[in-house]
């Protein structure tokens, strides 16, 4: 946090004469403890949210404030609606991630061992990685019907390319010396991959999974909004859309808050994983 404040003040310093006041500014804001600064910003954010809700003039309200949202959030989780939606989304996302990782593993293995495989992977990732995952949904529906399979296909497709691209990059950028050390010990094949290449490529692998998860998370919510299975089996995207359909703006906001919280939680989980592994091992600087 201290360094971000630094960047801010540096950006503001245009003339040297102003640096003195900047220093004072920095002491007043930057000297506050990090948690307090975050709490203050969060409070400001909530106040602005409340303001937006208060100024909202539509009838019924199309923006609800933090308090009704909190109530709907508690209610949604208490009666199990939000929980079951979250479960559905996470189940589909988990399945898609597994499929994505398996396909990525096969592709990168080919890319690692054969020149053709590498060319194929490069071509596919350069075409499909920038493609928003949701773009293939209409065809997924055509191929798989209006089923969970269509969603899983779309999300797996969104997930596989960043994972494959990152793993492949990770393997290719393993220091040659390290590979030689492994071979020097007599390691070959699967054992060399498992004991040397995978740990050495771990920063890229984690980055790939993190990017894959982020892509997948966005895609699955979007896909669920486009077509949700009605009733109890819909995911979080469906929950939001359903809330909107029935004008339950507070429930919709609670859904959005849930999505944000899960996003933050999983992001933190990856952060923790990185701190425990690659950051601890000095293979990646702390973000």
């Amino acid at each position, binding site marked *: 946090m201290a360094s971000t404040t630094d960047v801010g003040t540096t950006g503001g310093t245009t003339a040297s004469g102003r640096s003195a006041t900047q220093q004072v500014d920095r002491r007043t804001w930057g000297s506050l403890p990090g948690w307090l600064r975050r709490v203050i910003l969060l409070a400001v*954010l909530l106040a602005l949210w409340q303001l937006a809700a208060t100024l909202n003039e539509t009838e019924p309200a199309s923006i609800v404030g933090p308090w009704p949202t909190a109530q709907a959030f508690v209610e949604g989780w208490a009666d199990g609606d939000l929980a079951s939606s979250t479960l559905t989304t996470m189940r589909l996302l988990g399945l898609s991630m597994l499929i994505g990782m398996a396909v990525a593993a096969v592709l990168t293995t080919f890319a690692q061992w054969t020149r053709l495989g590498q060319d194929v992977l490069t071509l596919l990732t350069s075409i499909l990685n920038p493609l928003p995952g949701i773009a293939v949904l209409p065809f997924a529906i055509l191929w798989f019907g209006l089923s969970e399979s269509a969603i899983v296909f779309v999300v797996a497709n969104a997930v596989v390319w960043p994972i494959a691209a990152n793993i492949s990059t990770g393997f290719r950028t393993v220091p040659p010396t390290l590979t030689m050390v492994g071979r020097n010990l007599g390691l070959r094949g699967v054992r060399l991959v498992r004991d040397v290449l995978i740990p050495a490529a771990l920063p890229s692998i984690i980055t790939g999974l993190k990017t894959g998860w982020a892509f997948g998370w966005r895609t699955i919510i979007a896909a669920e909004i486009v077509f949700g299975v009605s009733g109890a089996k819909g995911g979080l995207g469906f929950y939001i859309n359903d809330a909107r359909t029935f004008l339950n703006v507070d429930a919709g906001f609670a859904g959005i808050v849930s999505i944000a919280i899960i996003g933050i939680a999983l992001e933190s989980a990856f952060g923790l994983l990185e701190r425990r592994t690659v950051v601890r091992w000095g293979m990646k600087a702390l973000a």
Partner: protein
Amino acid sequence: MSLISKFRRSPCGALTLVLLATLTAACGGSDAESTGEGSGTAAAASSGDKITIGYQPGIGYAQLLIMKQEGWLQEALGGRQVEYRSLTSGADIRDGMISGDIQIGAGGIGPFLVGYDKGVKWKLLSALEDSDIWLMAKDPRLTNLEAFGPGDKIALPGPDSIQAVVVKRAAQEQLGDPAKLDANMVKLAHPEALQSLLSGQVAAHMTSPPFQFQEQDQGARKLLGSADVFGQHTFNSVFVREEYQAENKDVTDAVYAQVERATKLINDDPKAAAAILEKESGGQLKAADAERYLTDPSTTYTTEPHGFMAFATFMQDIGLIENAPSTWQDLVFDNLKGLKGS
């Protein structure tokens, strides 16, 4: 001032602003999504003289299509700008009306009653027709609702749609649980649902005219009609916000008058009405088909509202809405109060 500029320049401040922008975008999202325009109040203020009529695809909006093709409303209002906008769901139209982009909305009973329940201050300006809407299926295995397995999808326009309410009512009557088929329901606009039914992607389609006729022509069977569970009832109607009606009585009167005129044309001279509909569709809908649809006994074009209380009571019973009107007259403007509604 320097504090604000610093706030805006510092990454934390910028982050807050971005978050705020995201937040407001998310809040406005449901409105902006359907209409492609800015946030509600601004659009309401700027819409000025223009009248936007929101409807959905289908022969169930025949009066509006005729008015659109013939320019009757512009004519009646002395050349005021009138825009007809086709949307894919009742919720889209409702949200457009809340945000102020749409002044005159048309749609099924479901979204209208959901809006009423949630405090949208709107009333019926006119019904459009009584219609028996059908549940269509192609697979010979599906002879009744009991035959539906978990994988047998039923396509319908939305969980709040009149089609969904009909399926729930039928599920209650025939399977003992209104939510029994909830997991089978899939949200699809009618044209896509028709394709999906014919290609076997969905097992059934709770549909509306003319799609039910088209599906019948192509080998699908009627499993159920809405009249079987709700009796004679309105399918689509035209609704307006009370505030708008109070301030623009000339407009709403003109709309009602033109809807009545179109209804009369359909009933008195379906051939002429069908010809207009062919023109309106750019030739996609043949006049002969249009005439057949308009004169099919399953549909009666009338401005008199029917079945609103039956729907409202049932929707309240199963918890789709909390507030039901005590009489159908609470739901309509004065111009309809003298009719024999229900």
